[in-house]
C-alpha cells in the first residue's frame, strides 16, 4: 500500500470528487470508490517515481515546521521555486512530506 499523500492534489481531488458524484447517484458503492482511491495511490506513486525526472530548487524563509508521525509539515514564506525553465514565486507555501525511505513506510499497518 502506498502513501495516500497524493490524494490532496488536483489530480487526487478531482478523482475523489468524481467518485463522490458516482456514489451520490448510486452508480458505485463507497467501497468501490475506496478501492479506486487505493489504486490511484499506487499509480501516482509509481508514476512520480518512474516517469518524472526533473529537479526543482527553492529558497525562502521558514515560518513553521512540524514533525509528527514521521511527517514533516513546513510553512514557508516568500519562496522562489526555480526550475531550469522558469521561476515561480509565492508568498506562502505549505510543504507536506512523508518519509521517503521505502522501508519506513512499509512497516506501517496496511
Amino acid at each position, binding site marked *: 500500500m502506498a502513501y495516500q499523500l497524493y490524494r*490532496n492534489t*488536483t489530480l487526487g*481531488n478531482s478523482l475523489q470528487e468524481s467518485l463522490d*458524484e458516482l456514489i451520490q447517484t448510486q452508480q*458505485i458503492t463507497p467501497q468501490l470508490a475506496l478501492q479506486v482511491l487505493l489504486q490511484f495511490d499506487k499509480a501516482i506513486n509509481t508514476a512520480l517515481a518512474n516517469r518524472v525526472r526533473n529537479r526543482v530548487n527553492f529558497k525562502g524563509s521558514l515560518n513553521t515546521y512540524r514533525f509528527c508521525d514521521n511527517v514533516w509539515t513546513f510553512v514557508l514564506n516568500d519562496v522562489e521555486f526555480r526550475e531550469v525553465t522558469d521561476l*515561480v514565486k509565492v508568498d506562502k507555501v505549505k510543504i507536506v512530506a512523508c518519509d521517503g525511505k521505502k522501508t519506513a513506510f512499509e512497516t506501517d499497518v496496511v
Partner: protein
Amino acid sequence: MASSANSNPVPKLYRSVIEDVINEVRELFLDEGVDEQVLMELKTLWENKLMQSKAVEGFHTEEQAALQAAAHQQAQQATQQAQAQQVLLPPQQQVTSWQSTRPTVTSAPQQQVIVQDPKILQHMSATGMSAAATAATLALPTGVSPYHQLITSQGNLSQNCYIKTADGQILQFVRAANGAQYIIQPQQQMVLQQQVLPQMQPGGVQAPVIQQVLAPLQGGHPQQTGVIIQPQQIVLTGNKVQQNAQVMQMPGQPGQVQQIQQQVQQVQQAQGGAAPGPPQQQAKQQPPMMLQVDGAGDTSSEDEDEEEEEYDEDEDEDKDKDGGEDGQVEEEPLNSEDDVSDEEDQELFDTENVVVCQYDKIHRSKNKWKFHLKDGIMNLNGRDYVFSKAIGDAEW
C-alpha cells in the same frame, strides 16, 4: 496529439496516471458488477474536473486537441501585437526641439518631439529629470532661434541647463533641488560664452544637441531666493564645472531672476502636468496611524481589557488572544507579542500553495534548514508542477 506537452511534463503524467488507474480498476468494477459505462463516466468526470481546474496547462482530451491548437495560434498572434511598441519617449523624458515648436509659452500636451540625440536622453533620465512632465517651449526674452546648445548635468536633483541663443547669449536654466527653476540672464556670462563656445564642440562626450530642455517642473515652488544651484557634474567638459560654479555665484539681478521666475511659473502652470513633487512627497511622510492601546483615548473596548486582566491574574493561563477577533490590537501588553497567529486570515485564500512530496533528508543547522525532497506534486499560484527531486533552503 498536440505538441504542447513537450515542455510541460504534467499533462502527460496526469494522462498516464488516469489511464493506469482506469485500467486497473476496470477489473474491480467488473467484479462488483458495475457496468463499463460507469467506468467511462468516471473517467470523463475526472478529466473534466482537471480541465476545469486550470491547474494543468495544456491538459485536454483527444477530442479537444484541435481546439487547443487553434487557441494556441490565436494566443501567439496576440502576443506579437504587444511587442510592436515604439519607445517614442517615455512620458518622463521629453524634449522639445526648437525647430518644431513655436517659441511661445504653451502647454505642451505630452510627448512632443523626439530627442535628436539619444544619448542626451539617457543622461536626462539619469539626472532625474524624468519626474518632470512635458517639455514646453519657453518664451525667452531675447527671442529664440532654433539653434541651441544644451549642457546637462548629471546631478540627481538639480540640473543646469545652458541654452545658447543665436544671439550668442547663454541663458542658464537652473533647476534647484526642489524643482524651482530659474533662468539667469546671462549678461554676466558673456565672458563665459567665449569659453563655452569652443568647448561646445563634441570633443567631449556628445554632440551638442539642438534642444531646449525645460527642466521638469517639479512641484513648482520657485524659491524666492537668489541663485541656488547645486552644480554637480557637467557632461561635456570639465571646464564647465568651473564655469558653472562661477555662474552660480552670481548674486546679482534678483529682479531679473524674479521676472523670469514668473515666466517660468506661467510655463509651469500652463503645462499642468507637473510630476509629483515635494508637496506630495511631504504628504507621504505622515506617520502611520497608531492605535492607542491604553489610556484615556484608547481604541479598544475598556471592558474587555478589564476582563482580560482579571482572567489572567486568576488563571495565569496562556494569553491566548483570538487574534482574528474583531481584528483588535488590544492585547495584553505583557504577552501580546507572543502570538504570531495570523493563520486565520491567511487560510481564507483560494489557492493555498501546497507541495506534497516525500523527504529524503531534512537538515537543520542553527536556524538554517535544508530540505531534500523527492517525488512531489506542487500547486503554486493555481498551477500544478511536479518534480522528482527538490532541494531547498530556508531560514527560520
